[in-house]
């Protein structure tokens, strides 16, 4: 599998104008790579993840290309994308486990989902049961209503269903957020296992929880205010980040063993800029301790070390 994203821009239409939520993303994902997509509320990570697969409603495609396995995806055409959705690429949307139809038993819902994709659902039932067992779900789950399952069980069921047709790319949007810490670990490790077993080739794991990404992701892409800030191996992002935002973010995370009395952590003062009429130049400059005149000009997102990309004049 290979994914190339080139200068992707997706804005949101509002009465007051276009919110420039995703403003020029360019990066690649290699075969078998689990890329974490991290950043805070409003940074554009969900817009990126959802824009690649289900750009619709108030989302407005402005420009850019998404190429999966050498085929350009017609992301601006919601109907055309139906041929690719679920088969070539698949998404576990945020709050998926709360979106299960409460009036459908799980098995019925899966059957209807497969039929809608032109797939003969009966052929897939044995494989579905096999995969359910793999994630610790009894096949009895097929005969249950969502109400009868715990949060963790629903999440595991959704993970299996979303990857049933072995898509090349899986986009997982905040799949660990609402779960207990022990279930979070199981779900995160499941992602690796899915890749190991060939259910999925590559993944984009969207989350604000960088410590989960450190555990399971190969690379991490950090976004800020609609722009890409830094991309590198997970090890590098955590231990030797170069973008000021990444560095401040990593140092503001409490860890077991760090106490207020021992070492008071600080957050990042200020708030991200509104993206309705975003400021000129680097969008982090108002909060950046290293900002200088050059930052009024937007820094390019370029490779500063092998495999390590960042958008900061101080680092280029």
């Amino acid at each position, binding site marked *: 599998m290979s994914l190339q994203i080139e200068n992707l821009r997706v804005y949101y239409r509002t009465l007051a104008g276009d919110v420039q939520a995703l403003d020029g993303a360019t990066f690649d994902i290699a075969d078998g790579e689990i890329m974490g997509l991290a950043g805070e509320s409003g940074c554009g990570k969900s817009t990126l993840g959802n824009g690649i697969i289900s750009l619709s409603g108030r989302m407005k495609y402005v420009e850019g290309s998404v190429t999966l396995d050498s085929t350009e995806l017609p992301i601006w055409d919601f109907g055309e994308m139906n041929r690719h959705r679920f088969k070539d690429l698949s998404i576990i949307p945020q709050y998926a486990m709360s979106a299960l139809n409460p009036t459908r038993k799980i098995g019925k819902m899966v059957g209807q989902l497969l039929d809608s994709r032109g797939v003969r659902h009966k052929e897939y039932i044995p494989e579905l049961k096999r995969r359910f067992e793999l994630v610790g779900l009894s096949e009895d*789950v097929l005969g249950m209503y969502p109400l009868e399952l715990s949060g963790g069980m629903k999440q595991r069921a959704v993970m299996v269903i979303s990857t049933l047709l072995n898509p090349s790319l899986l986009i997982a949007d905040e799949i660990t957020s609402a779960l*207990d810490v022990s279930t979070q*670990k199981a779900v995160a490790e499941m992602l690796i296992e899915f890749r190991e077993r060939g259910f999925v080739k590559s993944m984009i794991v969207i989350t604000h929880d960088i410590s989960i990404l450190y555990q399971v992701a190969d690379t991490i892409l950090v976004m800020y205010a609609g722009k890409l800030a830094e991309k590198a191996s997970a090890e590098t992002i955590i231990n030797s980040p170069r973008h000021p935002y990444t560095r401040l*973010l990593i140092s*503001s995370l409490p*860890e077991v063993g*760090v*106490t207020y009395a021992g070492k008071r*952590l600080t957050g990042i003062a200020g708030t991200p800029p509104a993206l309705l009429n975003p400021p000129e130049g680097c969008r982090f400059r108002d909060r950046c301790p290293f900002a200088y005149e050059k930052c009024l000009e937007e820094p390019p997102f370029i490779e500063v070390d092998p495999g390590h990309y960042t958008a900061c004049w101080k680092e280029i």
Partner: protein
Amino acid sequence: MSGYGSDGQGTGEGGLLKIDRVSKVYSTGTFGGKLLTAVRDVSFEVKPGEVMSVIGESGSGKSTIGRMILRLSPITKGVISFNGTDISTLKRRALKRYRREVQGVFQDPFSSYNPIFKADRVFAMIKNEFFPGMSGPEWRNKIGLVLEAVTLDPTQVLHKYPHQLSGGQLQRLLIARALLLDIQFLVADEIISMLDASTRIDVLNLLADLKGRGLGIMFITHDLSLGNYISEKTVILRRGMIVEMGATEKVFGSPTHPYTKMLLASVPQIHRKWEEVAEELKVPDAVLIDREAAAKGAYETVSEILAPDADDSVLVETEPDHLVRFSPEEAREMEPSAVAGKSA
């Protein structure tokens, strides 16, 4: 209980907030035939200026305890006392005074506000209820002071609708609201989990500052690193029972109960991989699901792989300020005098 005054005033004995052998039992089932014990025989104490982390997963009873403290839910057995007074005896004026002194902030800042009103309506509601006679300028000054205490810029948050503010700002507004009263004890139920990483630490530091001013805080969370950062004491709950408790550095420094170790081993740390931590704690690292049993629908949550503690298990003091739950047989093998009989 000692410490009653004739008007329900506490005499200050018994610490700030004391939970003494508290249980909560619900009737479930179609006709109320079955019983569900959400909280079983829990005892602990929080002193002024102390933060107690109550850590547990879903179904542990942590939120139920918070609600009982806030008198949002009645207690089935046991006593909760505030400044020496049993809170279940409080009525009318004494109860209203209790509400000035003990407040709660909950997980989802967005659902705590009515979206069709401006966010500062929560302040107006407090004024109507508790300060009806206060003059306008005096009230505005009071608001200014609490906003300063939570480091919010009045020009950025006043007269705005909830959807115009971020989760962090909304949460801090709720803490400011609690500060308008004479709050001595705060129940903070998962208040950080829906916030961004860079605002979490601001809210945590705020709580730490408030405790420095004498506020007692019950910090309910499932995230051990947050609990570790600000709390002096930690209670680990599982299925309604305390499995380990004591000084935070002892509970995290030498975790003894298998459930505590499993929790610690599951927390994703930013500089250590799961395998490393599990190795150090001697917890098996493999995906914690017994596949065969799970396939038969035996486990709902991953942590159920550990056998639950029996009803007759007891808390034993393994070192000063560190209690761990053991079976009666294991407890007998330890120092008999160490068994904290009254907390069993």
